[in-house]
């Protein structure tokens, strides 16, 4: 087996054995979304107007909560040292771990999103764009988040710090992610390809940046 599949298989197996972690993230996604009608009022047209943004913002926050899972435990139990010393290219190891993170948080968020969109009265034509936008946007969220998660290893107050580092970098994904959905609803389509472009850019840069951060964390 290649390095990528070996690491991916192990992380998926770990996530499966500790599936409560992933479920907590999904539960957070649901609860945070459901808070909005209480804060704003139950009028269907207002909720429909804000539904794309609400789903995206809560998805970003939910993903943020799960980011420290990518590296923190490995850093604390010595696995990170061994992974760096595996002789395998570290960016490949990072990419495998990010893929596992995306499969265990990004994908469940995508599957869960239409259910939450129903509670927010999202118009019918918004559902496919919603899932498509999340499908193309969440890989960037995991990739950029991995860089942040690697940078805060060994810090005090890592979680709060991580949100300060990563959330500003998520703004482009948020802008285009919601625009794709709103465009489909208002009939002025916005291409989702720009989200794919962000994902490709993140794919080419983030594994290297995260590797550099991991190496300095292990020094």
């Amino acid at each position, binding site marked *: 087996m290649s390095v990528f599949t070996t690491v991916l298989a192990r992380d998926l197996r770990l996530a499966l054995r500790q599936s409560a972690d992933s479920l907590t993230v999904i539960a957070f996604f649901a609860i945070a979304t459901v808070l909005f009608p209480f804060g704003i009022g139950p009028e269907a047209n207002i909720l429909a107007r804000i539904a794309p943004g609400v789903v995206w913002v809560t998805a970003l926050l939910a993903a943020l909560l799960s980011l420290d899972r990518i590296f923190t435990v490995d850093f604390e139990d010595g696995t990170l040292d061994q992974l760096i010393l595996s002789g395998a290219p570290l960016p490949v190891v990072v990419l495998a771990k990010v893929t596992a993170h995306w499969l265990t948080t990004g994908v469940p968020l995508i599957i869960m999103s239409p259910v939450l969109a129903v509670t927010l009265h999202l118009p019918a034509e918004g559902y496919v764009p919603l899932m498509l936008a999340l499908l193309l946007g969440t890989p960037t969220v995991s990739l950029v988040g991995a860089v942040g998660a690697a940078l805060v290893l060994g810090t*005090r107050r890592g979680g709060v710090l991580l949100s*300060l*580092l990563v959330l*500003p970098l998520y703004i482009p994904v948020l802008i285009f992610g919601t625009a794709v959905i709103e465009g489909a609803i208002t009939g002025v389509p916005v291409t989702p390809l720009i989200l794919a472009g962000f994902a490709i850019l993140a794919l080419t840069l983030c594994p290297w940046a995260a590797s550099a951060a991991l190496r*300095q*964390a292990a020094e």
Partner: protein
Amino acid sequence: MHRFANPTQFMRIANAIFPWVAGLAVILFVIGLPIALVTSPPDYQQGETVRIMYIHVPSAWLALMVYGTMAGGSAAFLIWRHPIANLTAKAAAPMGAVFTGLALVTGMLWGQPMWGTFWVWDARLTSFLILFFLYLGYLALGDAFEDSERGDKAAAILCLVGSINIPIIHFSVTWWNTLHQPSIMKLGGDGVKSSVDGSILLPLFVMLGAFTMYFFAVLILRLRSELLAAKIRNARLSQAAVGDALGQAAE
């Protein structure tokens, strides 16, 4: 290049140019402020509020230039391990945050008379708000480690990641802005464009120069301070080492 990596030699050069930079800053402020505040005429569109531009635009320019300086310093630190490059980034960061904050505040105070509101989600204001958060993140990360050397490298990597993101963020915000608020007036841009006039350009350029020279002068002072902090830390650590060795000998 490596000649500048030696802290002592670098500081010798920096200290030699310091009086010139500081003097130039003072002279430019002394010339620029009266022009900006008194002698320059009000703009035919914006009236007296154009005077805000003479400090808003330099603040905004430095907010960006400082981030560029930090990105360059961080890259040089990560690639060539130049300690001075890292100290430069570290010394510049709080100033960058202050300039970004000033650009935001002056932008808001300019927006109120122009648009009738302190805050609009204008592309430029929004981009600077995000830039401000990037500065805060950099400062917080550099400060979050027990071992300050670890924070240096982490902050340097973050700075480079941020510098790649700034154009993407600006592009996204601009696009988003045109999508949602096509009719809103652009801050600053129109002011400069609609009156490319010597009476406005002169105070603007003098103030740009004054702010830039101020930045370099204070940066040199901050670098001196950072180097001293490193020396003090080393001295303290060696005292701790000696104390430990004495303790061992006594045992």
